[in-house]
């Protein structure tokens, strides 16, 4: 079984996670830029983070045979902070990079006018840079937030087929299913969505335009819940092709719209620098 996790914050995870993920078949990941749990206080804090998402993190992932791409944005939780908003002017430079496969996570946290503005500007950047958009839906007041998200997406002029609306549940999936947008589901150990609930949604809505992710980060989360969901699908009677579609072909199709998804690392290791013994010494034993 091959798994592509379309939303996971590897910066917050350990090398043990990478090893377990690779062993479980999680061979490709997309890491959206997001909040760090601790508020940032200036744009430089973002650029160092973006550099890490496009430099160190893919390098770290490659040591374990995992292909890493990123999405870049000013996240919704900080979009209302005037200390952070100037980073919007630095985004164009990052949105041109090879491994950037979408603008994201963008969207709403508290649905303020400041968040409207950042959301709108970043949807325009997605259109300008020919990139898909990954949209986070708020945890509080989710249904209203999802409706307002879809209105803003429609008004922006971006092709809905290039938008993934994430963190959906039984209540909000119906709002998105008829819009042409992709539907993202984050499987969490306690909150958001569980594997059995996800299987039920797949039974009702089908596998088309569905993305399943672990959204694992620094909170209570588990990078292998994608695998658990895949197994729950098989146990519930879905066949291997259904699982492959949801866990691999769908995310590949969505992010390939960027024209920058590069999965060649899965088959042909890059010369010299991806050799496990050589590269391994730099991280697995690094710092000794």
């Amino acid at each position, binding site marked *: 079984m091959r798994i592509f996790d379309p939303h996971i914050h590897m910066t917050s995870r350990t090398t043990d996670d990478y090893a377990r993920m690779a062993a479980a078949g999680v061979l490709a990941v997309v890491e959206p830029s997001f909040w760090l749990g601790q508020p940032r206080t200036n744009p430089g804090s973002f*650029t160092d983070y973006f*550099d890490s998402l*496009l*430099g*160190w993190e*893919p*390098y770290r992932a490659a040591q374990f045979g995992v292909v890493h791409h990123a999405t870049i944005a000013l996240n919704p939780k900080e979009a209302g902070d005037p200390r952070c908003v100037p980073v919007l002017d*630095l985004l164009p*430079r*990052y949105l*041109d*990079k*090879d*491994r950037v496969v979408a603008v994201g996570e963008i969207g709403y946290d508290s649905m303020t006018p400041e968040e409207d503005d950042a959301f709108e500007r970043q949807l325009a950047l997605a259109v300008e840079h020919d990139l898909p958009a990954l949209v986070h839906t708020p945890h509080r007041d989710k249904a209203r937030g999802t409706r307002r998200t879809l209105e803003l997406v429609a008004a922006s002029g971006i092709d809905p087929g290039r938008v993934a609306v994430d963190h959906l549940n039984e209540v909000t999936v119906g709002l998105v299913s008829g819009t042409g947008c992709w539907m993202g589901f984050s499987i969490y150990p306690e909150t958001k969505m569980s594997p059995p609930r996800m299987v039920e949604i797949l039974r009702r809505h089908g596998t088309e335009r569905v993305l399943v992710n672990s959204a694992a980060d620094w909170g209570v989360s588990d990078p292998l819940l994608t695998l658990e969901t895949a197994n729950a699908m098989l146990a519930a009677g879905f066949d291997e092709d259904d699982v492959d579609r949801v866990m691999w072909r769908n995310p590949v199709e969505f992010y390939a719209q960027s*024209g*920058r998804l590069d999965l060649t690392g899965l088959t042909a290791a890059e*010369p*010299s*620098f991806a050799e496990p*013994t*050589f*590269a*391994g*010494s*730099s*991280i697995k034993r*690094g*710092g*000794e």
Partner: protein
Amino acid sequence: MNRPVEPSVKPPMRSSGTPPVQASDESIERLRDAFQGAPQEAWLDGAVEAVAGRPGSIARSFAAAGRRAGRAPLAGVPGWSADEAARALLLAALPHDRLTPETLDLYRYGDADEKRAVLKALPLLPIGTAAVPLLLDALRTNDARLLAAALGPYARHLDQAAWRQAVLKCVFTGVPLNAVDRLDERADAELAAMLAAFAEEREAAGRPMPQDAEALLRRLTSEET
């Protein structure tokens, strides 16, 4: 701090024991010639011309070089890939007064491939010592691709202490020493002492010393009298 130097260590070697693999003697002209008649030539010519006229355009063309010029090894220029060479040509097209600020910026906002391309291009550019801070930044990382690229011919601007630490870091992190330009010419008694101490630690840990480092240590200490 002063590390005791073993008295038996011989002075720096002048004759090289290993052939340099780094493409140290490449020139902008040779990189340009390698694109002659290639399918990427039209894009490259357009981007180079744009950079000469509108230097700010390099931010986008530099980022796009991997997608536009490809990433395959460049025929006839060992050690260079097409995107690295294209990026070097874009840098070389900058008007002289914009070369330093744009180069520093492209490295600052570059992804790992772009940073590596900047480092590789430095010895081919009329930039003096202005880009030494970029080497120091790269040497601070644990990214083998950046460490290797930082130890090309431009590393002649590193002082001996920084250079020794960089070579030792290569040994430590497994970067092959053939990435280091003029290794035998620059290797000195102090480096030999550092390598000897490292070999001792490795032996104590029951782990092998990388062969190229062991060979270097041997060359530095073999002709003792």
